[in-house]
């Protein structure tokens, strides 16, 4: 049996048990997506968007999600994942909502996708049917999705403190794939902050697929912070699609430390005049980790502003890809786009492929990009050492500073602090490795 045939049998085996199986429209959407997958398979490096990230090892994994009730992790396991604020919290275990671990504040407009499919399926249809699948990695999610967060912030509302979405992978269902779909609408003039934590343990290879669809109304604002700390054998495939209304503002911050293969793909369409987006992140890789950050920003209307800044630290034989595409549509005058990708390579075997791509079809625009890759600043290292700080600690300070300088100005002190701590925790063994070398 080829992988593609197996995709279809995997789908056939679980289709009747997936949430929303009684909804005709959803069954159609799912089986079309599965059909596409069976026909074409997962993307290969022949597809431009997947040139540097090989999904063939992923194609060998089981695609089946676990569908029985998820094992209940000890709530204490959530301890160090909690944010330093009284957040509403939605916890998903192996891709399914776990209400007993969750607390949603009164009036906070967040429900699980599986619940929403029961209670208001009509409202979800436009989200789940609208698209031609961008690629078969997305189709995979559509075919198998089990749950996710549905958040709809009504016009003018401000949601504070942040909503914390925790996606937990447990060892109880080893090898089962996880599929999450989040649907987030922030209506005109509304404002929200979302914090996402993806965390799993174990070293059995498995797929964790997350697709997040975001729509911002005119003048809306959404800040989203993500900590990706998947287990060392996981293939984490994240895709975010954001549609930005006039004068809206989307800010996306990510710290990515986990996974054997981690893809963070973000497609933003500045669809209204004067929309703004900020995409910033840090990826830290070691061993044979592969981090892929792929961003596509489309400036469709005038006076949009986009800012991208990603920093990577790569040790061992880790590899990272940064593909940043910025497209300015004809007529999107006064577009202001800026992109920067900086990498610190701590070993000779670490590797970065960075590929900016500017497609400018309008006049009177400001677009710039830059990319760097290098080792730790020798002059700075010497300065620290001349004060008696040993090479190991001095290197850790510099790498920590490189990462921290970006995180520190992220616009939510609690989130920034949590993400900085996660990055710092990652750094300790890196430095230990260097000392051993």
């Amino acid at each position, binding site marked *: 049996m080829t992988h593609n045939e197996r995709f279809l049998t995997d789908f056939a085996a679980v289709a009747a048990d997936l949430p929303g199986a009684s909804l005709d429209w959803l069954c159609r959407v799912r089986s079309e997506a599965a059909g596409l997958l069976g026909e074409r398979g997962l993307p290969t490096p022949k597809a431009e968007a997947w040139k540097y990230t090989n999904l063939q090892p992923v194609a060998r994994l089981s695609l089946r999600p676990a569908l029985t009730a998820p094992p209940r992790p000890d709530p204490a396991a959530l301890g160090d994942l909690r944010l330093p604020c009284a957040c509403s919290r939605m916890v998903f275990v192996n891709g399914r909502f776990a209400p007993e671990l969750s607390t949603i504040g009164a009036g906070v407009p967040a429900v699980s996708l599986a619940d929403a499919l029961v209670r208001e399926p009509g409202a979800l249809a436009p989200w789940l049917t609208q698209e031609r699948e961008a690629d078969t990695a997305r189709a995979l999610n559509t075919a198998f999705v089990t749950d996710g967060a549905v958040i709809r912030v009504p016009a003018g509302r401000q949601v504070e403190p942040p909503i914390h979405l925790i996606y937990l992978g447990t060892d109880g269902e080893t090898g089962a794939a996880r599929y999450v779909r989040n649907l987030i609408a922030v209506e005109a003039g509304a404002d929200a902050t979302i914090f996402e934590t993806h965390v799993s343990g174990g070293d059995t290879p498995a797929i964790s697929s997350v697709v997040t669809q975001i729509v911002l109304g005119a003048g809306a604002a959404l800040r989203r912070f993500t900590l990706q700390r998947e287990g060392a054998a996981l293939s984490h495939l994240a895709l975010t699609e954001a549609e930005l209304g006039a004068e809206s503002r989307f800010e996306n911050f990510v710290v990515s430390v986990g996974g054997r293969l981690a893809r963070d793909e973000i497609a933003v369409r500045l669809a209204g005049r004067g929309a703004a987006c900020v995409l910033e992140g840090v990826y830290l890789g070691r061993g044979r980790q592969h981090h892929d950050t792929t961003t596509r920003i489309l400036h469709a209307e005038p006076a949009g502003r986009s800012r991208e800044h990603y920093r990577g630290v790569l040790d061992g034989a880790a590899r990272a890809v940064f593909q940043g595409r910025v497209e300015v549509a004809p007529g999107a005058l006064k577009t202001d786009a800026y992109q920067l990708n900086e990498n610190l390579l701590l070993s000779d075997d670490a590797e970065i492929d960075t590929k900016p791509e500017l497609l400018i079809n309008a006049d009177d625009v400001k677009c710039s990009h830059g990319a760097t890759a290098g080792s730790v*600043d*020798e*002059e*700075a290292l*010497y*300065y*620290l*050492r*001349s*004060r*008696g*700080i*040993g*090479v190991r*600690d*001095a290197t850790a*300070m*510099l790498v*920590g*500073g*490189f*990462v*921290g*300088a*970006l995180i*520190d100005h992220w616009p939510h002190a609690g989130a920034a602090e949590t993400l900085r701590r996660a990055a710092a925790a990652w750094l300790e063994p890196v430095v230990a490795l260097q000392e051993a070398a």
Partner: protein
Amino acid sequence: MLVIDNLHVSVGGKEILRGLSLTLPAGAVHAVMGPNGSGKSTLAHVLAGREGYTVTAGTARFAGQDLLGLPAEERAHLGIFLGFQYPVEIPGVSTMYFLKAAVNAQRKHRGEPELDAMEFLKVLRREIKGLGMDEAMAQRPLNVGFSGGEKKRNEVLQLALLRPKLAVLDETDSGLDIDALKTVAAGVNALRAPDRAMLIITHYQRLLTYIVPDRVHVLSGGVIVASGGEEIAEVLEREGYAAFATTTLSAA
């Protein structure tokens, strides 16, 4: 305490120090003056342990120990401190965190207990106040966006916190306004001690009216061309380096 003998150092195939000899006894304060490019900072960095220099001949011994093979941090542990002419900016590392790490690294090496956050803060506050600095500075990333004078004061703050046995101050006075110069000089003078030696590199005789050196050396073309008392600084002030230029850069 510090004995440099016939030191030859090249950088990128170019010989910068060309047989430099200098002896600095414990408790002494010596000044080094010399034209731009004469090798003052090179000397300072060779003593502090910066990489990239090739020592082709000569020795530098500190308290009887050969310095030249040691990594920078070990020289710091021996008690050597360099106040940088151009302090390095380090984004993302708070000044406070850095200072505490430096103090504790050295304490640890000496077998003393490390200072906890509260203990360190107390010491830091005292020194910051003594140097007329703003405490808020300690929260900022190390040297990032500091004015020229603030960077230099931050060097003196480190000097005061680390209390080295040998302090090499490379143009710590340049970039300081007159009030800061007096504060910094007072800070340095307060650290004068029988077991502490200082090598003060400067272009200006003015500093030497506040920190009166025991001896002044003129460095030109990579060698000491004259040594003497304070009067040398006054001659320089009046006549410039031409008075001592037995070896010129062009000859180098």
